[in-house]
């Protein structure tokens, strides 16, 4: 038997070696098709258009001037189809002879609606958008490249309806960004979608390997990917679209495709960008020159010592090109920028090689290799109040002179560190060495059959170090003796994908395509840490310490899935798809492991490219299921385990207080969506509208166990949650003249999140913060103490000194219910705490305008905004705390009696205990992007640089219109981390807490792009 198998395999290999080249020889009667793609309005050549020969798999991308060449086209008549984002497709018939053929110029007309674009995410095999029953957002390289953003998720802000893309912190290297598609869908798995780069599932962790503020999210690992390498991004937003990704797709999928290189001679490109980042606005502090006793006191503004104008530079060098058999794209990138907080910086250097090779007439190989080194210098912020800079700023009284005396930095009186000391001495360097690579083989043994196999690896080596010198921190904790730490984490994600797609010969009015595939993913994370306290006076490494601690952790997750899909086209108008994924993950109990995730979708093209005012109408609907799995933190929740309980220097065990769940299974989302695309006024107006309704059942979280059993909780299904919403995208081509073009895009997103049911008590999802998960309310509503009001008039109840009465304090409200009601004049203040706000926005929107003037000057402006959400401003609360007393309201307490602005003594001490007081409207509109680029293409320039020189001046986060009083309404303490435990428990529902965040800078940049 084995012998037969070996012989059989040998024959197959021999056949592959011998037979395939003969196929190349066999097709001798071919010719080469040449032509040019141009813009119908401007007449200029259009690069990056997809040109294909209908009925074959032959095709090419147009070059910089719109030129294209397609070799080895069988002789005979052929339709040449041209597609490009932003244009209606065009077709031209050519007769190919052995001498080749020329199409001449193929003119594309700009279109506000693009339904013929081919996408691959969520549909198993390349499919036109018009055939898919869900909405798929795609963003192309122009939009990403011109955003002048340092990371891809930053570049997507404001460009995808249904996506809440939040920059949670403003540190260098992109800050920590979270992407949430269609609301909160899970408590445990983070809000972030599954990221795939060229078919490789990539790690977008935002782990803090040392304490940089626990939940402050300084950076997420998508920051390693150079946006300049990206060709396009596809976003599918929910279960209906993502069923084929099975138990990892509940939060949607973002697939990134990098550039492949265009046909032609090598083309070199160099982009240089210089940027300047600055603090948008200083915060007001208490600078009143008298103290509590009316005595003069000197006060200091530390902000200029902490923040500075920071510069950055970025260089991208690319070379791409190719011929009929080979296409390549090679790039090198250096990004080096300082953060606006002194002593913070980020430096990313990377190289990429993308290679596509026709290995045989029916076999194409694709290889991508991307190596990145990211080196950051961070400072702690957010929750880190011992040595974090923002915490020290907010908690330090303004009358402390932090300037060093004889080299000694004075420490603040009660909390935090000296921020100048932190900037000068505390170091948190990170080094990330990352390789992302993939190999893909596409084989078309017969015209109707397409076989694809991809293997990909993402290997992230991450070292986090920390050095806190001796005597840099108040108190007697070990860190006051100094701390040196080194943590190494290696994350390796390997995935294999195989898919086969068979297109049946047409059967009357029906066309069928059958697709089947598998996917196997393994994620392996290994962490080792060494920590030393009791540091010597000199030396920043662990070896400088005298008291040592070490730890090690290893987690592996594997997911295996098989899927099958059947598509039926009827008269090229109605498209029906049914699919199922059968999926298993190692994290679930064996008995519950295998789950089926079906989907059904239909698309009906009512009108297509009709002339006149009503050009296009497509209706679509889809129903699908997807799941989510526990993240790395809870990967082994199915096992009943024991924890180390060492004592008196001996190793010991005790039961883990989190009881294992031998029946653990996945969360399950059911989503239904319905939508339409409409093209109007000669497709100068395109409207895309979607309504969706998603219900997630069996939400996983910690179910409390009776603590008398010796356990505390169990990871188990606890309830269900829904998201319902509307996404609208309106694109208009307002003016399309030869010398002036103006287009606009408006997006609107409304999402309503609701906790539908809970099998357990309401719970605080953000450990230590006043919020709640409660049935009948959106996830993560603020819940806490409030200022008591008169039940009859609704007026605030004040005490004799004019101070608020705290709902949860007996001193203010009396000890008994009867006393409370007597003070309140009713029952309206009976509860100690109540729901006091909601961090979830009512709606989000963006407004994007693009102007092209005289074909050379491009002006772009993007406004985006979030509306109707609330923020709990704990930064200002910290300023008001007694030990800080550095806020503007505290200043009013110091004013002399008689001043109309005078606040009664103890006013601010009272507001500390009223969480309602710190709720602010978080609505904002940002001028997110503004840019002007000019193309120098006079002959003198073009003699040197083939495509001319693009010069761009741009700005990000230039203006923010908001009533929010903190540094930035976008800052959020909780970003992408979720599923943490204990006092640092964090869920994907936790939003809207501003506590010592790193302010988001205003950025100006100037860039020049040369190609030759």
């Amino acid at each position, binding site marked *: 038997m084995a012998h037969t198998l070996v012989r059989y395999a040998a024959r197959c290999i021999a056949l592959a070696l011998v037979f395939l080249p003969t196929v190349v020889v066999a097709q001798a009667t071919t010719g080469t098709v040449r032509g040019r793609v141009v813009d119908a309005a401007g007449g200029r050549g259009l690069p990056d258009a997809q040109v294909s020969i209908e009925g074959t798999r032959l095709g090419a991308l147009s070059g910089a001037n719109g030129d294209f060449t397609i070799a080895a086209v069988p002789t005979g008549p052929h339709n040449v189809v041209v597609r490009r984002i932003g244009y209606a497709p065009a077709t031209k018939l050519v007769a190919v002879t052995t001498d080749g053929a020329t199409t001449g110029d193929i003119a594309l007309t700009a279109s506000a609606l693009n339904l013929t674009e081919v996408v691959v995410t969520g549909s198993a095999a390349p499919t036109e958008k018009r055939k898919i029953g869900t909405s798929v957002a795609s963003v192309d390289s122009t939009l990403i490249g011109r955003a002048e953003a340092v990371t891809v998720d930053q570049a997507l802000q404001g460009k995808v309806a249904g996506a809440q893309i939040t920059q949670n912190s403003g540190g260098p290297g992109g800050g920590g960004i979270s992407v949430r598609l269609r609301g909160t869908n899970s408590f445990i798995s983070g809000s972030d979608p599954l990221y795939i780069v060229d078919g490789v599932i990539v790690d977008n962790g935002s782990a803090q390997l040392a304490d940089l503020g626990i939940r402050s999210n300084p950076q997420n690992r998508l920051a390693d990917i150079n946006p300049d390498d990206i060709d396009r991004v596809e976003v599918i937003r929910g279960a209906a679209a993502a069923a084929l990704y099975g138990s990892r797709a509940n939060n949607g999928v973002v697939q990134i495709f990098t550039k492949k290189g265009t046909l032609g001679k090598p083309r070199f490109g160099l982009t240089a960008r210089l940027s300047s980042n600055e603090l948008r606005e200083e915060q007001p502090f208490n600078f009143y020159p008298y103290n509590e006793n009316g005595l003069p006191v000197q006060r200091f503004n530390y902000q200029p010592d902490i923040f500075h104008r920071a510069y950055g530079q970025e260089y991208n060098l690319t070379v791409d090109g190719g011929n009929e058999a080979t296409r390549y794209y090679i790039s090198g990138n250096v990004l080096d920028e300082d953060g606006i907080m002194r002593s913070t910086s980020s430096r990313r250097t990377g190289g990429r090689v993308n290679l596509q090779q026709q290995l045989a007439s029916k076999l194409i190989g694709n290889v991508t290799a991307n190596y990145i080194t990211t080196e950051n210098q961070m400072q702690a912020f957010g929750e880190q109040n011992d040595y974090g800079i923002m915490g020290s700023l907010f908690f330090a009284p303004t009358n402390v002179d932090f300037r060093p005396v004889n080299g000694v930095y004075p420490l603040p009186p009660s909390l935090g560190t000296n921020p100048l000391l932190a900037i000068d001495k505390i170091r948190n360097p990170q080094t990330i060495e990352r390789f992302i690579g993939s190999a893909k083989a596409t084989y078309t043994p017969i015209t109707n059959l397409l076989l694809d196999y991809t293997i990909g690896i993402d290997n992230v080596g991450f070292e986090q170090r920390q050095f806190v010198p001796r005597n840099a921190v108040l108190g007697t904790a070990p860190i006051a003796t100094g701390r040196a730490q080194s943590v190494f984490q290696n994350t390796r994600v390997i995935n294999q994908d195989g898919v086969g797609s068979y297109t049946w010969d047409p059967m009357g009015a029906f066309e069928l395509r059958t697709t089947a595939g598998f996917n196997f993913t393994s994620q392996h994370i290994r962490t080792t840490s060494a920590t030393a306290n009791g540091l010597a006076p000199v030396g920043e490494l662990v070896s400088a310490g005298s008291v040592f601690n070490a730890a090690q952790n*290893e987690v592996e997750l594997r997911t295996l899935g098989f899927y099958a899909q059947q598509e039926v086209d009827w008269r090229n108008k109605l498209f029906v798809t049914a699919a199922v994924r059968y999926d298993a993950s190692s994290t679930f109990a064996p008995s519950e492991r295998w789950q089926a995730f079906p989907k059904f979708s239909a698309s009906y093209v009512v009108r297509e490219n009709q002339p006149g005012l009503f050009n296009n109408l497509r209706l679509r609907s889809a129903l699908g299921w997807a799941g989510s799995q526990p993240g790395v933190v809870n990967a082994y929740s199915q096992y009943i385990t024991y924890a180390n309980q060492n004592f008196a220097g001996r190793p010991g065990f005790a039961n883990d207080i989190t009881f294992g769940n031998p029946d653990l299974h996945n969360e399950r989302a059911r989503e239904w969506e319905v939508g339409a695309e409409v093209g109007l006024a000669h497709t100068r107006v395109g409207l895309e509208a979607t309504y969706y309704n998603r219900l997630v059942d069996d939400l996983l979280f910690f179910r409390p166990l009776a603590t008398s059993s*010796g356990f505390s909780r169990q990871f188990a299904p606890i309830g269900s949650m829904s998201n319902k919403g509307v996404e609208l995208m309106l694109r208009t081509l307002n003016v399309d003249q030869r010398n002036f073009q103006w287009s606009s895009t408006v997006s609107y997103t409304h999402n309503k999140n609701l906790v539908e049911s809970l099998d357990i008590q309401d719970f605080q999802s953000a450990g230590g913060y006043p919020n709640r998960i409660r049935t009948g309310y959106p996830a993560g509503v603020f819940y806490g103490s409030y200022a008591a009001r008169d039940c009859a008039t609704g007026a605030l109840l004040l005490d004799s000194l004019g101070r608020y009465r705290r709902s949860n304090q007996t001193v203010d409200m009396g000890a008994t219910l009867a006393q409370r009601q007597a003070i309140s004049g009713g029952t309206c203040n009976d509860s100690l705490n109540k729901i006091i706000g909601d961090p979830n926005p009512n709606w989000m929107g963006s407004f994007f305008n693009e102007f092209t003037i005289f074909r050379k000057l491009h002006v772009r402006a993007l406004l985006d905004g979030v509306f109707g959400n609330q923020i709990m401003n704990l930064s200002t609360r910290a300023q008001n705390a007694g030990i800080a007393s550095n806020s503007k309201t505290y200043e009013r307490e110091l004013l002399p009696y008689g001043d109309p602005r005078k606040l009664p003594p103890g006013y601010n001490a009272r507001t500390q205990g009223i969480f309602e007081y710190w709720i602010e409207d978080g609505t904002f509109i940002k001028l997110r992007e503004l840019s002007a680029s000019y193309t120098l293409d006079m002959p003198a320039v073009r003699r040197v640089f083939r495509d001319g020189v693009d010069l761009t001046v741009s700005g990000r986060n230039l203006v923010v219109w908001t009533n929010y009083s903190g540094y930035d309404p976008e800052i959020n303490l909780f970003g992408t981390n979720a599923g943490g435990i204990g006092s640092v428990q964090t869920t994907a529902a936790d939003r809207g807490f501003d506590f010592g965040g790193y302010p988001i800078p205003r950025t100006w940049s100037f860039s020049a792009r040369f190609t030759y």
Partner: protein
Amino acid sequence: MRMVRRCAVAAATASLGLLGACSLDLQNPNSPTQEQVTTSVDGVIGLATGLQGRFAQSYGNFGYMAGLVTDEFTATSAALISISDAEQGAVPSGTAISDNVFNSVYRTVRTADDLLTGAAALADQIDPGTLSGMRALAYALKAESLGEALQSYQQIPIKTFNITAPSYVPRSEALPYVRALLDSALTEITATPPSAFFNNSVLTPGVNLPNVIQLFRARYARMANDDAKALEAADLVGRTGPTALSLLTFPAPAVNFYANVTGGPNGIAPRQQYRTSMAPQDQRFTYFVVPSSGLTGRIGAPLDPWNRYANPQAPLLVYFPDEALLIKAEALANQGQLAPAQAVLDSVRTDCTGGRGIDDPKACLPPLAAQLSQDELLTEIYTQRKYELLGTGLRWEDSRRRNAIIGPTASPGIPTSGQRCWLPYAVGDRNANPNVPADPSEPSTFPTGCPL
């Protein structure tokens, strides 16, 4: 062409086959499973160490909480309001103060039950002396933990092992159960003396198990007003030589419970009144605190910083040896044997440097001048217990027994004994256990004892 198709199918099948070989059954390399721990001798011995670790934690939690709700401790720089509430006698439901004792006690109980179960299952693989030692240790620490719970909560669960919703019983049922556990511990070591392996490699170095069992027996016999048994057991607690102290040790990087909370957001320190209310010659404060003049706690209470636990590696005494003498004196006084009672009490009062050669608080007071009456003796014993047993949590039960619960004492008032009767039941248990009784109401007139 057919061959090509067949090869493609074969390649696809082969890759699927390879995938099938990729197991989805992954073991957790970070933590041992229940089976690995409870079915191996090494694992069960590890449980015995874990039990002692958990005991140190629950004992610390009990002493910490009871010190706050009596007159012993004040919050230092606490960021947590619940701690300064507790030092004024207010313990709202759901706070760490009300839950930590309960939760940690029942974790200790769970580990003791795990150890008993594991030892029973592997009885034929463990030598008899090690087996008896581990069983006695489990009984003793389970008993003391439940005893701490019944000094904190009006009713407590006593049968909890593998029960999802344990029932609560009053002290009249719980206290005999605790005493029976201690008797079982004694029976174990009497029948089969613990092996050298147990004493040297399982039991924490510095702990003398027979003495611990006898002291606990005396303590709970006294609580049950069983003076005869209290007397008998107290007499069996060794009072000289190296075995007179039983120490839980904390070699670095481990940190003593009190040192661990000192300076942190949960920080506490003894109230200055502990020192200043002593008789002028009394030297016991030097054992515990460093006298201060102006230090105050979070809400202004004068305090003295720790001396005893300033060193993070300072050992924690399982019991103070003179507790046996004070139990004995109280039992004798109760029985009307006033002169012997006073003699025993004087031996505590006159314990002085050198003394019995052990490192414990030393009063260095003169003996009482004249024979006291029974009431006077009991009051004096109560006073001596206050100074001798700081931080053990026993002060709270003493206040109850003496009908000296004085109710919440708002700052700047300074409490002089226990401020409340009970803690609210743990929310962690209530959230998942329908058998948790309603929180007991606190008395409204003071001073008072507490309804049991």
